[in-house]
Structures are given as structure tokens and as C-alpha cells.
């Protein structure tokens, strides 16, 4: 019975949460220890009049490759290589420790030399897009959860299309039943724009209710020109418009949840390519 098994399951829940924290703490401990070792090795190299930047440079490259592995892991899902959650934790820890290592390697926030600046720009783009992604992934899912219904991103266009068809059918029927084209004219002037594609992208992104206000404002303004039959149709159109507004919110939030990766991943690939070229050049000219 549920109430009798509670104590056993409480322990299980505590264990699960505890395990995640323990895993994260372990990654941080390993990461910081690794970073300290690299910093020490670079310091000792400088002390013995060798290039400490070579040590930090190779370490940075290794970190970048390790960070890129998270994408490879997704393709090898069947292999028992640990959970994606653990990989993501490691990704966050390595990514965070990459910044102080970069500062040590570059000798400051902004290096001299055009190529090095290009590298730095890529590095900052990857880092800042990563931070943005992390923040977005913590904020936006909660906002999505509070919307009505759960919609798969790829299905939003077809759902909007279905709603538009239903609204157009209601408008046509309303015009036929009432013998006046007020609804039809209103649809063509205002609602057609709204139903054509997702709207109020930024408003939904920042949590404003502008979309709903727009709908209610337009519908309220029109209502005085309609008879009972048309008003009934308008009520249904309003409810479909509000549903469309929810889809727009889903579209805006889910788009941003996906779009940041379109900055993060290409810039990461470019960074790795540039870093390899940098490594090559440094090795050729340092001899």
C-alpha cells in the first residue's frame, strides 16, 4: 500500500538526488584538480624559461575536443558510455574551467594579432552562447510547462494550418448565415494576418500577453457590429485565436531553445578548426 511503502521510497528518492549531486561534485573535483595540474605545469615551464603557453594551449585543445565529444555521444546512444546527463555535467564543468585556462593562455581577455583575435572571438561566441543556452534551458521549459497543452515543434505549422482552416470555415458560415460580410471583411483585414504564421515572437519570448490583448481588443471592437448568429461564430473564432496564440508562444520559446545551438555548434566547429591551424602555425614557427 502506498502509505506503507513510503519510507522505502523516500530513501530511494534521496539516493537518486544525492547521486546526481555526488556525480557533479566528482566532476568538479576532477576538473579543478586537472586545471590546477595544467596551471602548475605551465608555471613550472615558465620558471624553466620554456613556453608555458604551449602547455595551456595543448590543454585547451584537449578540452575543446572533450567538449565536442558530447555531440558524438549522441550518435552512439546504443553503446554503454554512460548517461547523457553525466556527459552534460562533464561538458558544463570542462566548459566553465576552459575560461580561466583561456585567460592564462592568452594572457588577458583580448589578445594581440588578427588571427588570435579571430580565435578569441570564436572562443567568446562559443562560451557566451553556451552560457545563454544553459540559462535558456533552465528558464524556458518552465514557461512552456505553464502554457496550455504540449506541442511538438515540428507539428506547429500543421496545427496553425488546421486552426486557420477551421476559422475560415467559421467565417464563411457566419457570412452565409447572417447575410452580411462584416465577419469576412474583418477576417481579411485583421485575422488573416494573425493566422498566416506565428506572430508576436518577441512578446511571447519575454512573457508579455500582447498577443492575447491584441485578440481581445480586435474581437471586442468588432462585436458591436454583429448580430447574435455572427457573435456566436465570433466567440468560436476568438477561442481558436487564443489557441493559436498559445501555439505562437510554444513556437517562440521552442525556437529559441533550438536556435542557440545554431550559434553554439557552428562556432565550436570553427573554433576547433582555427585552433588546429593555430597549433600548426605555432609548432612550425616555434622551431
Amino acid at each position, binding site marked *: 500500500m502506498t502509505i506503507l511503502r513510503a519510507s522505502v*521510497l523516500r530513501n530511494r528518492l534521496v539516493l537518486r538526488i544525492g547521486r546526481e549531486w555526488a556525480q557533479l561534485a566528482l566532476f568538479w573535483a576532477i576538473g579543478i584538480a586537472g586545471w590546477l595540474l595544467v596551471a602548475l605545469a605551465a608555471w613550472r615551464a615558465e620558471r624553466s624559461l620554456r613556453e608555458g603557453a604551449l602547455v595551456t594551449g595543448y590543454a585547451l585543445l584537449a578540452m575543446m575536443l572533450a567538449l565536442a565529444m558530447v555531440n558524438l555521444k549522441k550518435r552512439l546512444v546504443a553503446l554503454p558510455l*554512460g548517461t547523457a546527463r553525466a556527459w*552534460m555535467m562533464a561538458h558544463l564543468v570542462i566548459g566553465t574551467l576552459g575560461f580561466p585556462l583561456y585567460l592564462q593562455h592568452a594572457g588577458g581577455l583580448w589578445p594581440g594579432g588578427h588571427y588570435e583575435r579571430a580565435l578569441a572571438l570564436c572562443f567568446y561566441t562559443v562560451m557566451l552562447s553556451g552560457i545563454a543556452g544553459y540559462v535558456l534551458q533552465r528558464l524556458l521549459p518552465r514557461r512552456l510547462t505553464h502554457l496550455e497543452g504540449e506541442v511538438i515543434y515540428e507539428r506547429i505549422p500543421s496545427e496553425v494550418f488546421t486552426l486557420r482552416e477551421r476559422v475560415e470555415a467559421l467565417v464563411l458560415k457566419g457570412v452565409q448565415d447572417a447575410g452580411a460580410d462584416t465577419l469576412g471583411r474583418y477576417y481579411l483585414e485583421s485575422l488573416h494576418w494573425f493566422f498566416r504564421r506565428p506572430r508576436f515572437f518577441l512578446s511571447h519570448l519575454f512573457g508579455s500577453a500582447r498577443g492575447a490583448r491584441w485578440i481581445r481588443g480586435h474581437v471586442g471592437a468588432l462585436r458591436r457590429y454583429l448580430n447574435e448568429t455572427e457573435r456566436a461564430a465570433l466567440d468560436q473564432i476568438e477561442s481558436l485565436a487564443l489557441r493559436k496564440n498559445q501555439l505562437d508562444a510554444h513556437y517562440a520559446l521552442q525556437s529559441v531553445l533550438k536556435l542557440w545551438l545554431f550559434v553554439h555548434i557552428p562556432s565550436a566547429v570553427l573554433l576547433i578548426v582555427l585552433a588546429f591551424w593555430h597549433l600548426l602555425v605555432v609548432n612550425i614557427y616555434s622551431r
Partner: protein
Amino acid sequence: MSDAQLMQRPRRWDAPFDPQMSESDVDALLARPEFTAINLARFPSAAPLRGIVRNDCRITTYAAGEIIVREGDYGNSAFLVLDGAVRVVLPPGLPQNVLGRATEKKRGLMDMLSDALARQPIAEMRDTALYRDAVARTNSRGEQRASLLNVPNPAALFGAGVDLSAVSGRVPPLLPAFKTAVLAPGSLFGEIAALGRVQRTATVYAEAECRVLEMRWQALRDIKNRDDLWRQRIEQGYRDNQLRTHLLEHPLLAGLDPKALQTVAARTLFETYGSFEWYVEYKSGSGEPPAEPAVAAEGDYPDGLLLVTGGFGRVSTGLGHGARTLTYLRNGDHFGLDELYEAWKGGEDCPYETSLSALGYLHVLRIPFSVLAELVFPRITPPPSRLSDAAARPIAQDAFLEWAVDKRYINGTQAMLIDLERCVRCDDCVRACSDTHGGNPRFIRQGEAMGKWLVANACMHCVDPVCMIGCPTGAIHRSREGGAVVINDLTCIGCGTCANACPYDNIRLVPIRERDGRQVLDPASREPILKATKCDLCSTLPAGPSCERACAHGALRRVDIQSLITQAEELGR
């Protein structure tokens, strides 16, 4: 369409249980007393008794020592002893390590790597040649059988000094610690596990060479439904063989001596409430909540302790003008103990503090109060908490429980639960599933949501897997290891019975394609050949369900819904 692959639409009995079963075998079986009394006229022409015996049964010969069924296994067939010596090991049974459990074949590293590197360009591709070989494959007798004569430590079973290499013909008796009983020719066993979709409760082995008739559960179901003697026999078999096991497994009765247990068993009543095929009404979508037959009503006086042996029951109490769900009961739970114990202790009748109703169906054993007062209550401690204690929690905490009970999610042991506040809608879980299942995911990341929890449309591997009811070929079954509900693609005929029965719409029929991408069509109707697909918990992968492992945010979990309800209660959500 012109270059489509043609294939005859599969039908029941396309792949008989034993293609080697001859007409003379069938004649001999039908001449046995177990079958001669059956009224043949009660069977429909589409599924006559002869056809059932011919296609859904097989005769298997076991050598001395070989295990026929093992305790803890899930099985879809029952067994009728034809001749020879068969023994059943009574509880507590054999140690697990001597049962020789075979492990399911897991995919190797190279296999998984090659799959990852060479993805199928088209989803649901099959080698249709395998279906043509299905008859031979399904009935291959190459399966590895465990034998008591090959256990790692025979002394633990037979005692020191027994030379098993010298055994011929008959297995030596087990140590006295293992209680056994003979199953004589004509005995039926395994029928409760097969029909009730539960684990087998005892190990049965061949004491000497024997022949048994293995019957698919569909055969047993058809015969039981059409013959009263078989129905009575199955019920009596339950009383004789399983009841004491059920009683002994219950913590309240665990320490009873054999004589007392015999008394309890003799006076226990079997009761079934609701419909075994509850999902039909549940899926009808009438909008009205399905009827829940009352088992016990708040305020009535109890006359016996109810032990749940199957199905689910809702425990509720009146609140305002409605009923408030306090908890639910499932196999192993009991109802009425608080009131009966109080009545015994105080010497006055004590009415039920809560009501019990059947969610779908509910099998209960009713142990009369007089038996409890005489044999059970004097030796137990007072119950530590009462069912009615749950009424003290705030009403706001009821929502999740009420929702899970109403939606029957309490049935799920491996429900895919997504924390929507953590889920970033990346669909990595869907892609992972698709990558491990030939390019087509076995679930949809949509479903019913309650607060931040979404129960996705993925097979929940139910306690009561109603999808297994009615499968004409037995293609959908419990896996031997772990008990996951899986579909044998080779014997699935794409009839859709399982998909239609699943109350949660978690089984999908997909059109299949040949390895070269051609559609596979039925030559007569030119309709595509379909196969049922569902989540199999990635049972062939060594690391478990890929969906859960692919979630980088820890949002997706496969859970026993009951644990979540308890967590919600614990956390006061």
C-alpha cells in the same frame, strides 16, 4: 507500387506451435479423457477444438532432471502432463542460483557500433525471408534447457555423496528441505500464470523422462471459455496449488504452521469484481468515467479480510458530495485489517472506515473474521498505521493520485515520465529511440500531463498488460528476463488486437519494407503488411532504455507510477 514485394497476409495459425504435430498426434490427444468430455459444438467453426489442439499446442518430451517451468518466470503457456514423472517444487522453492536461468541475448559492441555507423536510410525495414522461415524458427527445439542434473553445486540440492553422473532414468530425490509433490499424468500446471499474466510461482521439473502438452494461453482461454469442466478444473487447481502460496506470501500469514494454513486455505473465498476486459469500456471514450464495482462500502460491517491477488482497487472515503481517493491497492495489498483487528481487540463490531471499489477488475481472497480471530490476530502486532490515516493530508495533495488512478496509470511499471520543467524539447530521447529501433521511434513525446509531469505515449509494461489478451499467435509476451512486455516480430501478424486493446494507445502498427526499401504488400488486397511495434525497454541493449540515457537534462525517467505517487505524497506536492 509496381515494384512492391508481395506477401500473403498472415493469419492465426500460420505459424503453428509445432509444425511437426501430426493428425495422428491430434487424434491421440483428443482421445484422452481430458478432451473427450468437451462438447465440440460449443466451438466456432473458425476455431474448432481440433484446430486449437493442432495449432496452439505442442507435445514436448523432457529428459530426467530438465526444468519445465521455473519459479519467477513469465510464461504464456500452460502444461498438461501426458505421461512420465513430473514433480513440482513447493514453496519456498529452489535457490535462484540453481535454476539455470538463461539470459536474453544482448547486442555485442561491434554490432552496436556498426548500427551506429550504418544507419538504415528507410525505417522499418525487414528481411521478409525470416518470416517465411518463421514456422521453423518459432518452433525450433534448439532452446537451451536447464537441468537439475547440471547445477553448479548439486550437493546443495541432492546432498553430498550423490553421484549424478550415474543417474539414469530417474532424478534422485531432493534434500528434505525442498518440499516437492508429484504431478500425475492428466495434471494441468502453469495455467494461472498463463491466464493471469503473472509470474510462475513454482518450479516444475521432469523426475523421469516425460511428455507434456504445452498449450498456448490462447488455447487454454478458448477451451476454458467453452467448457465448464475445464473452467472448474482450473479454479480447483488454483485452490489446490496456488492458494496456499498466495497466503504464505502475505506478511500477515507468513509464519502460520501448515495445519493453520490449511484451515485458512480451506475457508478462504475467491471473489472477482469488475470485468477482466475492463479496457474495452475504458477505451470506449464515452466521456463517462468507467463503472467501478463496489467491493466494500464505508459504514458497512466487514466479515473478512480482503487480500488482493490481481487487478486494482480504489480506497476512498466520502468528502462533501463526492468520494476522495486515499490510495489504491494491488496484488499483495489487503483491505479491512484495521477494522477487523479493532473489532477483535475491542470485542465490538467496527464498520469500514473507507470504501473499496474495483478499478477494472479486482481478484480478492476473503478470509473470514472467525479464522482470523482464531489463527491470525493472536500472533500479530497491531497495524502500525491505518488506511484512513491518509485522509489527514491536505486535499491539495490529492490531485496527482486522483489523476493517476482515473487514467489508470497506476498500471505502469515502466512509464515514461517527463519532467516538463526540465525537458528542453530537444527530442534527443526520440532520436535515441529511433536510432536503436531501425529508424522509427517506439514512442511519441506526447501524452497526458499533470502539472509538470507528462506521461508520454510509451509502453508502460503494465502490471496487467491487457495488450496480451487476444493476441492470436502469442507474439506479444512477457520476456523471460525482467518481465518486459515485448513483441516477437516474427510471429506478429499485424492484426492490431494488441494496439486496439492497449488503453493508453502505446502500440502502433507500422507498414514494413523489404531490405531494399520496397514496400511489402499483401498480394490479394495490395494492402501493406503491418507489424505491431512498441517500446521494448531496449531489452537487447546492455545499458537499458536508450531514451532515458539520452536525456541530458535528467528530465526523462522510466518509473513505476506508484513510486511517483508516493514521492508526491512525501514531498507534499
